[in-house]
C-alpha cells in the first residue's frame, strides 16, 4: 500500500490495520521524499518500520494491483 501525506511524502508498506476514523498502520514502511523542494526531483528513501498515518494528514492511498483488478474496482464504483 502506498500512502501519500500532506507534506508531499509517500509511505510504502504492508497494510497492517485500518480503524473507523481512517487511520492506517503500515508494516515495514519505507518513506519516499523528494531531494529538492522544487519538482520534479528524484526521491530518496529510508526505512521506518511500523508507522501510523493519521487520516487527517493522508492525501492519497494506492495499492499495487493488476490491470484487471483496477478495472473491476473502477466498475464497482458505479
Amino acid at each position, binding site marked *: *500500500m*502506498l500512502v*501519500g*501525506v*500532506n*507534506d*508531499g*511524502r*509517500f*509511505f*510504502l508498506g*504492508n*497494510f*497492517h*490495520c*485500518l*480503524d*473507523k*476514523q*481512517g487511520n*492506517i*498502520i503500515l*508494516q515495514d514502511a519505507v*518513506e*519516499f*521524499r*523528494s*531531494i*529538492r*523542494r522544487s*519538482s*520534479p526531483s528524484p*526521491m*530518496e528513501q*529510508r*526505512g*521506518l*518500520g*511500523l*508507522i*501510523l*498515518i*493519521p487520516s487527517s*494528514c493522508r*492525501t*492519497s*492511498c*494506492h*495499492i*499495487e*494491483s*493488476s*490491470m484487471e*483488478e*483496477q478495472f473491476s*474496482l*473502477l466498475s*464497482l*464504483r*458505479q
Partner: protein
Amino acid sequence: MENEVEKPQQGIEMAETLSIPSGEGSVWTDVSSLIAAACKDLPDGELIHGGNFSLFAAMSALEIMDPKMDSGIDNGRYHSIDEAIENGAAPVPLSFDRTVDALCIIDIMDHLLACEATWHKGHSLAQTVFSCLYLLRLDRTSSHALLHSYCRVVHATCNAIISVVSDARTHEEEDLFTMAYGLPLGGEKDDRCLSNLNAVEETLCRQLRASKALSAKKMAVEDVEPLQTNFDLEEGFCKALLCRLRFRKHFYHLLMCMRRPQGRGFDLARKHISSCLSELERIRISSEFLRLVASKICDDGTLVRTTASGRQPVGFDANVNIRSSAPAPPRAIRTLSWKMALEYFEKLLHDLDIICSFSLDPLLENVLRFTVQFQKLQPDLVARAHLQLLLIQDGKLYGRDPIFAVICRAAALPEAVKDHDMQKNEFVVQLGQFVINLLKILCTNVAWQRRKLGKILQDWRIIYVQLELAFRKELGEFSNMSNDENLSMKMAKYILIWVEEQAYWIASRFLLLGFELDLYSSGEYCMVYWYIYVVLIKLAEKTHFRILASFDTAKRKGKKKRDSLMDLARDYQIPPAVLLLQCYICLADGLTTMLAALRNERKAFLSPGPFNTEHERFIQHFEHLQKACMPDHMSYLSFKESTAQASLSSLATHNHFKDAQRIARELKSSFAHDPDRVAELRHIEQVAEHNSIALNVISRVGALDTTLKISFEFTYHPYFAVAVVKRS
C-alpha cells in the same frame, strides 16, 4: 447507465506516485473511496487488520506528522545537503571580499570548536560537528587552503577521539557519542592533514612577518600575498588564525602521543598540552579584535554566543542531517557557547595532563587510589576513556604487567612467584578478569560506576569461595609438605586474604559514592553510617592482615630470622593505612551513635513515609551487600539492636570524634610526603572537631531543649557529615 470515469488526481501527485515504481505488470490503483466506504461500514470500536496483527505491538508504531516521532516532516527547509549547497548555504570562498572571508573562516573555526565541545559533552555527531556543510562535503573546500586544512584536521581529530572512546567503551549511557549514522567519517582522508596544516601555517607566518615589517616601515622581506586587503587588520587576522590552527595541530599531536602504548608518548604529550593551553589563551585574547572588526564590517545586531566575533557562522545546518539519525528525531540540543567551549577544552587538557603525569605505579592499591583521586575532578568522557586505555591494554596493566603478577604483588607475595603454575587455575584466571573489570568500572562516570560496583560484589564473594575450595582440593589441608607445596600454600593464603580485602574495598566505595550521588536522605544517614562502620571494620582487619603478611615477606627477604618476638612486639606500630581507616571508623561510629540517640529521644531523622518502612529502605540500600554476605551475619536486626540503646545523655561518655581527632593528628607525620592524604587528614580533623563540639552541646541539653535545631551538613568532607546545632 452513466459511465463515470474516475477523474485523475492532481497532476503533481499522480506524477510522483508514478515515479515510485510498482511491481512488474502491476499498477497503482487508487483505493481511497474503497477505504472511505469501509470506514463508514465499520461499527464503533472495530478495526480491519492484516495478518499477524497485535494491538499491543501496534502501540509502538511511529506516528507520522508527530514532531516527536517523525523526523522527516517537511519544515520548509532544505531537503538535502545537495539542495542546501546548490542554494548557496555553504559558499566557497565565503566571500569575495578577502577581509570578510577571513572573518567568516574564523567564525566557522570557533563554531566548530563549540560544536565539538557540545559533542564531547554527550550529544550526537550529526547534530553538532557534522551540522557543518563544509565537513559533509570536504572535497568542495579544496580550493580554499585555510578552510580545507582546518576541516581536514577537525575530521581527523573526530576520528581519533571516536576511536579512543570506542576502544575503551566508556561511553556507557552516552551512547550517542560514537554513532556516526553514515556520516562521511572514513579515516583514509586523514593521512595528510598535518602536512596540509603545516603548509597553511607557514604561509600565515610569512604573511604575519610581512605585515609587521610593513608597519615597522622596514623593507618587506617576504614576497607573499597578504591574507586580506585591509592593511590595518592584517596582523590581527594573522594572529587570530595562527593560534586557532596551532591549537588544532597540537591537539591532534597530543591525541596521537597519548595513543602510544605504555605511556611512552606521555612526556611529549605534556609538551603539546602546554602548547595547546597557550594557544587557547591567545584564542581567548583574539576575541576583542574580532568583535571590533565585526562591528565595523557588519552591524547585524543579533549577537551569537558560539563565535568570538559574535557573528552567525556560515555553512551550518543541523536539519540536513536530521533524517540520518534513528527513525525518531533527536532531542533538541543547545550548542555550548564559545566561552564554555574554551573552558571545556582547558579542563580536558588539565585532566589529560594529570593522566600523563602518572608514574605507572606497579602497585595495584596505588593505581586504585590514583583513579579515585582522578575521579574527584569529575573528568568527562574523553579524559576517562584515555585513562582506561592507559590502565588496561591487551589484558595487562599498562599493557605491560600481566594481571597474575599484579595480583601477587598486591597480595604481598615475593616477585619470584609470578611465573607460578597457579596462574593457570581457572578461578585465578577469572579473578584476573575481575581485576581488569574493576579497573574499567572505576573509569566510568560516577552513577554508572556505583551501579556496577554494587553488582560485582557478589562476584567477588563467589570467587573467594571458589578459590578457597579449589585451593583446598589441590593443596589439601594446611599440613607441612615439601617446600614447593609450602609456597603454594602461602600463595593461596595470601591471595585469599587479598581477595577479601579487595571485596570490602569495593563495598566501601559503593557505600561512600552514595553520598556523592545524593542517594541518601537524612533519615537514612544512621543506617548508612552504621553499615559503613561495619564494612570499614572488616576492611581495616583485612588490610592489616595483608600488611602483616608483607612484613613477613620482607623479613624473609632480609633474612632477619633471628629477630625475637619481643623486639617485634615492642617496635610494632599499626600501619598508617590501617590507622587512616581507623579514623573513618571512629567518625562513622560517632555519627551512627549521635543519629541513633537523636532518633531514640527526640524522634528526629526518622524515615517517614507511608510507602516504605525503615526495614524496606534498609533492604533497598544494602541489597547487594546483603546478598554478598558482606559482612556475614549483619542484618537489619543487628542494626536495630546496636542502635536501640543510644541515648543523648550517654553520648559524652565515649566521644569517638575525639579518637578520630587524635589519630588524625598523629598520622600527619606518616603522610607528610603525600599532599592529598595530608589534606584528607585535615578534613577528618575538622569533621571530628565540629562534631565533638556539637555532641557536647547535644548531650548536655539535647533532651530538654526543644528549641534546638539540629541538621547535618557536608561542609568539611563529602562523605562525613557535620552536626550543626542552632537555636530556632
